[in-house]
C-alpha cells in the first residue's frame, strides 16, 4: 500500500524509510524477538562484545541490588571518572557521567555536585526501573568514562559525540555522528536537541548537519563548520559495526560507537529499533541502500568484504535503485 499524493510520492522517490515500513518490512522480518534481550540489556551486549573481542568501555562493576549501592565507593576507588548506566535504559535515559570528585561529593560532567545520598537515590530509582521500558527491575553498570577524541572537540558542547551506524544483515548502510549541544544538555540524542551530521560511508567525512528537521552547516554552540571532518579509524569503526551482526544475529540494528582518545573506537550500545532521523542527517533515504543490499549483497560474506562493499556502493550521494 502506498499513498500517492505529492509529498509522499517525492519521499518514496527519494527512498525515505517511514516508521511503518521500518517496523513492518525490516524490524519484524529481520529482528527475531528472542534476540532483543541481547541488545536491550547493555550488560549482556557488553559481555557478548568482550567475548567476541570487540572493544567496549571497560566494565568497573555492576550494581544489581539496593545492597550493592554501598559498594559503589569501593568499585570506583581507583577511578575518579566513571559512568553510571542503567542496563535497560532507552535512548540515553538515566545515564550519569561523573567527571571527578570534589571532597566527598561527585561532580557530574555538566558541573553539578552530587553527594552520596543523592547518588544512592538515583541508583535506587534506576534499580527499581525508573529508566527502563515498562519499569522492570534493572541493574546499573559502572564503567569507564570515555575521554573523547579531540576530532569532534570543535563540534561538541560538553558530552560525548558518538557515531551511529545502521547495519543491515551485516552491511553498514548509513552513518551519522551525533554532536551534543547546549540544548541537549551534553547528550548525544537527536530528539533532545543534539545535532546529527551524516557521514559519507566511503570516505568517513562528515556532511552537513541537522537540528530537529532543519539543515544546518555550523554547530549552534561552537559555530564551527560541520561538514568535511574526517572521522579517524573509519575502517575500524565500519569493521566493528559490521561484526555486530554476528554478535546479535539481528538483521536491522543501529550500532553506537564512540571514539576514545586512548582506546580508539568503542561500542557504546546496540539498538534493535534504530530511529529514522539518520535519513535527515544524511539528507537521503535508507530504502535505496537497503534495496541495493537486498539485490546485490552476498549475506554470507565475511565482515571485511561487507565493509568493502559498503564503502564501494554507499559513497555519498547514493543513486540508483529505489
Amino acid at each position: 500500500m502506498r499513498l500517492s499524493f505529492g509529498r509522499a510520492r517525492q519521499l518514496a522517490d527519494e527512498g525515505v524509510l517511514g516508521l511503518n515500513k521500518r517496523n513492518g518490512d525490516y524490524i519484524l522480518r529481520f529482528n527475531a524477538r528472542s534476540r532483543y534481550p541481547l541488545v536491550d540489556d547493555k550488560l549482556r551486549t557488553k559481555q557478548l562484545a568482550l567475548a567476541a573481542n570487540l572493544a567496549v568501555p571497560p566494565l568497573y562493576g555492576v550494581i544489581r541490588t539496593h545492597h550493592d549501592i554501598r559498594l559503589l565507593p569501593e568499585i570506583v576507588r581507583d577511578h575518579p571518572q566513571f559512568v553510571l548506566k542503567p542496563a535497560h535504559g532507552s535512548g540515553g535515559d538515566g545515564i550519569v557521567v561523573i567527571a571527578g570528585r570534589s571532597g566527598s561529593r561527585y561532580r557530574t560532567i555538566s558541573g553539578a555536585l552530587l553527594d552520596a545520598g543523592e547518588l544512592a537515590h538515583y541508583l535506587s530509582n534506576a534499580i527499581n526501573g525508573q529508566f527502563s521500558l515498562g519499569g522492570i527491575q534493572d541493574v546499573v553498570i559502572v564503567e569507564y568514562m570515555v575521554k573523547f577524541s579531540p576530532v569532534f572537540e570543535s563540534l561538541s558542547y560538553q558530552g560525548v559525540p558518538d557515531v551511529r551506524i545502521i547495519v543491515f544483515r551485516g552491511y553498514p548502510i548509513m552513518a551519522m555522528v551525533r554532536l551534543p549541544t547546549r540544548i541537549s544538555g551534553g547528550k548525544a540524542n537527536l530528539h533532545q536537541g543534539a545535532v546529527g551530521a551524516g557521514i559519507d560511508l566511503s570516505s568517513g567525512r562528515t556532511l552537513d548537519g541537522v537540528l530537529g528537521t532543519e539543515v544546518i552547516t555550523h554547530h549552534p554552540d561552537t559555530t564551527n563548520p560541520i561538514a568535511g571532518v574526517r572521522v579517524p579509524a573509519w575502517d575500524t569503526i565500519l569493521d566493528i559495526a559490521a561484526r555486530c551482526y554476528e554478535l546479535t544475529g539481528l538483521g536491522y540494528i543501529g550500532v553506537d560507537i564512540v571514539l576514545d582518545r586512548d582506546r580508539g573506537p568503542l561500542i557504546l550500545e546496540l539498538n534493535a529499533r534504530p530511529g529514522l532521523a539518520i535519513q535527515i542527517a544524511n539528507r537521503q533515504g535508507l530504502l535505496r541502500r537497503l534495496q541495493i543490499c537486498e539485490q546485490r549483497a552476498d549475506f554470507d560474506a565475511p565482515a571485511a568484504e561487507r565493509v568493502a562493499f559498503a564503502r564501494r556502493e554507499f559513497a555519498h550521494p547514493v543513486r540508483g535503485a529505489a
Partner: protein
Amino acid sequence: MNKKHIYFLAAFLTVLSIGLFAYKAEVLGFPVRPQQQTEIWNIEAAVRFRPGPAAVKATLRIPSLTPGFSLLDENFISRGFGVTTSSSPAGREAQWSAREASGTQTMYYRAIVYRDPMRLAEDTTPPFPTPPELDEPSRVALEALIAEARRQSADVASFTIQLLRRINQGDQDPYVRVFLKHGESQADRAQLATIFLAGAQIPARVAHGVFLRSAPGAVQPESILEVHDGVQWLYFNPRTLQQGLPPDFFIWWRGEYPIAEVDGGHDLDVTLAVQGNLMPAMVVAERRAEAAGSHAVDFSLFALPIATQAVYSVLLMIPVGALVIVVLRNFVGVKTFGTFMPVLIALAFRETRLVWGIMLFAIIVSLGLLIRFYLEKLRLLLVPRLTCVLTVVVLLMVAVSVLSQKLGLQPGLSLALFPIVIIAMTIERMSIVWEERGASEAIQEGVGSLIVAALAYVVMGINWLEHLVFVFPELLLLVIVATLLAGRYTGYRLLELHRFKGVLPEVPR
C-alpha cells in the same frame, strides 16, 4: 504468501461478519437503527354467552396459518374456566370449559401480530376433494355449470372467477339458481364456490379473517376464497372477484364453521377488535427469533441482565476507540502517553462530557505534576512514590468534586470515573519525559494524548455506532479486519511527510 494469508483471513472475517449481520438484520429483523419501531397489531376476540345449568364448553377458532403475518404473543383470559388449545380442521381452536358457571361469561383471546413477508401459507398441497353428494337435478346443473365455466376459462384462476361471477348473478343464472338455498352472505357465496370447485376436482376452502387497521375498534370478519392451483394457494374475494390476498387481511380461521361455538350455553356473541401499535423493533426481533427457534437471541447480549448489558454496551465500544488510536498513531503519527491510555480517558469523558473532561483532566494532571516534582526532591523510592502520586490523585479528585459541588457545577461530580491508576501513571511518565526530554516534549505528548482521547470520545459517542455494535457484536470482526490491513500498512505516516521534508533536495512550493 504472508500477505495473501492476511488478505484471505481479512476476506473471510469480512464475509462472516457481514453475513451474520445481514442474517440478523434481514431475516430476524434486528433493528439497524436505534429506536427503530415495528408496526404491530393487538387483536382480540371477546366471547360472551350465558351458561346453562350444567357443564359448559365454549370453543373459539384461533389463528394458525396466517400468510403475511406472524403471531408474536397470545394469551387467554377467563374467570374460572380451564383452557386448552388443539388443532382442528379449521386451524387451531381454544376450548374453555367449566363444570358450572352462572351469569354472563366473557372470555378473551388476545394476540399480538406483526407483518412477516417471509410467512406464506406453508401447509402441504391438499388432496383432491371428494365430489359433493347431490340429488340428480343439482348434479346435472353442476356438471353443466362446470362445463360452461371451463369453456370460458384457461386455468384455475380464470375458472374460479367464472364460477364466482355466475354465483354473483344469483337468480339470473339458471344453473346457480338451483343451489341458492345456501344463502346470500359473502361467506355463503365462498362456501358455494368450494362446492362447485370440488365438483371440478379443485381443492378450495373458505378463509375468514379481519382487516388490520391502526385505529382501535371492533371489526367484522370477512371471507375470502382460497383455491389451490396445484402449486400454491390463490385468493379471491367472492364479491369483487379481486384476485390476491389484500395486504392488510389477517386470516383468522378457515372452513364452514363459525368462529365460536358454545356447548351447554346460549346467547353466544363474539366481537373481534383490532388495534394498531408500535413496538421497539428489538423486542419484536427477539420474540420472533425465539419463536423461530433461532439461537441468535439466546447467544446475544440481550440474554444478559440489564446491568451487565450496560457494561457491555460500553466495553464493546473500546475496540472502536482503539481503532481510532490505530489510525492516529500508524497513519497520522500522533504521539501519546501509553498505547491505550487515551481510550480509557475517552471512556471517562463519557461521564463528564468533553469540555469538562478535558478541563478536569488537565487540572488533575497539572496539579499531580506539581506534587510529583515536589516528591522528586524528597527522593522517594519508585513504588512508594507511585503510590503516593496515586493517593494524591484520588485526593485531588475528591477535592475537585467537593469544590464543584459547593460551586454548583454538576460535571465535577462525575469525576469519580476517571481511571485513577492510568492518571497516576501518566503523571509519572510525563514527569520523567519532562525531566529527561524537556517540557516541550512532555507537553506535546500530553496534548497529543488529549487530542486522541477527544477524537476517540467523539467516535465512541456516535449513538448509531454504539447501537450497531451492541446489537451486532459480530461487526467487531470488521475492526479485526481493519487492524489486519492496517498492520500491513507500510506507507508513510502523515506527520512523517513533514518530518522528512529535509531529506528532499528542495521543497517545491
